[in-house]
């Protein structure tokens, strides 16, 4: 099993969710995060004063999926979240040792 953690642009959430639903992935955890990679921040001027916006709002999506389907999910996710511009985000993939459904003790892929 793999855990996929994707940092994406907030406005891409609906597209990503739809694309994942399209390949049968419905369950995910979404959180509001702030940060920056190479995009760094930028400066805004309001009322003549400069504000540095260094931490940009992003969304983090977490999904756990069986090894067999991981590549498909990554492909779908990348395609849906991409604009081609700087700031599109990143995806990290982790190995998952075990998954257990608390309700009935299902383990492994069955618990996903």
């Amino acid at each position, binding site marked *: 099993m793999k855990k996929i953690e994707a940092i994406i642009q*907030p*406005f891409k959430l609906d597209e990503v969710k739809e694309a994942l639903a399209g390949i049968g992935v419905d369950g995910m955890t979404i959180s509001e995060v*702030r940060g920056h990679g190479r995009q760094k921040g930028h400066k*805004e*001027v*309001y*009322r003549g004063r400069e504000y540095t916006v260094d931490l940009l709002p992003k969304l983090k999506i977490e999904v756990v999926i069986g090894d067999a389907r991981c590549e498909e999910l990554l492909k779908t996710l990348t395609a849906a979240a991409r604009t081609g*511009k700087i700031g599109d985000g990143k995806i990290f993939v982790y190995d998952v040792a075990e998954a257990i459904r608390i309700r009935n003790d299902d383990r492994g892929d069955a618990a996903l």
Partner: protein
Amino acid sequence: METPLCNDPIRALAQRTALVDGMVERSAVEDLWPSFPAGLTLLAVGGYGRRHLFPYSDVDLLLLVESSRMAQDAPASISAFLQTLWDSGLRLSHSVRTPEECAEIHDQNIELNVSLLDQRFLAGDRALYARFAERLPRFLHAQRDPLMRNLTRLSRERHQKYHDTYYHLEPNIKDTPGGLRDYQLVRWLAQIRNVEAPRVEPAFLFLARLRCYLHALAGRDNNALTFDAQEQAAEYFAAPGAAQWMRDYFRHARDLYRAAVRELESSEAQNSSLFAQFKDWRTRLSNADFSVARERVHLRVPHALEADPELALRLFQFVARHGIRPSAQTEERVAAAVPRLEEWFSGPQPAWPALKEILSLPYAAEAVRGMHDTGVLRAIFPEMAQIECLVIRDFYHRYTVDEHTLVTLQVLAGLRGAVEPAVKRYTDLLSEMEDPALLLCALLFHDVGKGNANGGHAEASLHAAEPALERIGMPRPERDLVSFLIRRHLEMSAVMTSRDLQDPATARDMAGRVETVERLKALTLMTYADISAVNPTAMTPWRAEVLWQLYLLTYNELTRELETDRIPSAVSEAPEKRAFLAGLPTRYARTHTGEEIEAHLLMDGIFRDRGVALALEKAEAAWRLTLVTADRPFLFASVAGTLSSFGMNILKAEAFSNSQGTVLDTFTFADPTRTLELNPTEMDRLRVTVERVVLGRLDVGQLLRNRPKPALPSRGSQVAPTVSFNPQASDSATLIEIVAQDRPGLLYDLAAAISAEGCNIEVVLIDTEAHKAIDVFYVTAAGRKPEGDRLEKLGDALRRACGG
């Protein structure tokens, strides 16, 4: 599932009580009475005592004993008695007390004292019971105050645990505010105070039925109304759907909660001896209509509402001004007068001025809540009935639609006094609103369409709001803003989640939708309030940040385009109109109606003949001077100075110039001493003076010399002046933005300072909000952006001008 007698809960509960009575009596005959021929009495207390035994609730028994030693002498028989009942499946909870112990205040065990309020004789020593029964009323009377204090404290703690609201996605129908516990509470408090209990039987029957059902469904003492249980209950009780059925639930919970809070407040007021001694300073707020006593507003003449329905509006104006709620009695009187009010407001009643005042006052949110709770709001706006207790059934919307609406107003009120920078910038935005009442009014209506919408509720809300606003006599320009806000209230949050904020097209698109900074500010605040009022955690700092960025990008876009985006020469128009419009900022076309543009066109013709064209008119509460003439140095400053010399207070000003160097200046000003209104000849004198100044026949400096210097406002209300330059804001001019304490003559001093530095004013946008002037100038020097030394000197001169 075994069907409980859900349709007649009282009978079902009584039947179960009778069944348990029989079990207790049989068990006592077997195990208890052989050891206790006398000196022991069995009492049913709590829910069991009042014969309200739900299918799986606990059975509360009190073993009343002659002396505590007696119980210790024969513990085996008591154990056997309880054991038998446990074994037959009852969830028993018991205590052993002497009559003396029952007549003591137990601060640590309030439940014992309270459970005695529902005591009932079951079996045993009658003489002992008589002793206890005789003592009980004396005890209740003597210990009334501590009993009430304990009970109210306990109940307040329970309400607090559930955040003092009956709005919960999955309520516990016993303990959450508006639950069965509150039904007991109002009865107990009435019993202790020896007054009649308020009638809340329909709510009790609804909840009793539901609790029977939930117990039967779970097969245990379960009172949690989960999402699944809501679906099942709606089906079981043959409701058209879970959302519809939950609407009923909230109506009943609301009634019960209100009754409970009212009883708690009366008890606390009666109970607080400190309060009674306290000389209430607020009594000095009393006036001809209302008196204030004990932090509550009372009607001076209780029956006056019948003859004078507008008294209801004055009452809520009073509430909105002072933040003091009406007394329970007053609320009842107002609620009783609602049919009369409905009749009164059913015709075209110019209620807007009174409503607008309510919405403009500091405690508007409290006042509107009071109007909602008493039914006054619905008497004015029957449209509101559609959303009463309307449930949006998902895991996101915590409140019913009407409550959500009231919470949006509270959110705005809560912005006052915010200190955290991420929130405070919204506070500043609110303080810059020209007319917050219009924003509040738009919020009142924004979700009204949810009551009957198929598809977009924003349009449905607008559809309901427009005739209502017309009916109450809201003037056209105000109605336009309110309608705009209702129609567009979802758009900023949609852009926040679906558009790339870094893409310049997003800001351009948003700017095109709102068209002016004024509307942008209102819509931003509306979005802030709307999201915040979905549930207590919906407005995350993350969202507040994204909304602010969208505001900022759009704001900068709108101020940038003020100078840069000019109306192109349109071939289709008549030649004169084309010549006049060409080169004016796009803002001009957006903020003026076709009629106004036609009027300006006529003035343009007069200007060509006479060198200047002037129009002076009264607009709402203020005056407006429109001027078309040829641009020249010091022109804008001279006119501003002339108005000041007449004692006029400039609220807003705009100066635009077209490609031919013709300027259109508009000044909106207040006439604090009503000179123009009272002396029509003064209007002519003003017109002539401005004309002479514009044509260079009169020196404005001379006019101003005759004016006394106005007193500066007190230090406490000072706004620290900021003067900022932004050379990037436009291609050809430099933006100067000035925020300063407003004072008479400020605009003249600023504009004169700019002209004195040899700069030309291209575009001006002046706004004043509550002693704060927000002035935007786009200036050039010799056709280019001013630079270097000149900019520095200009900054110093402007800062000096701000200081007066």
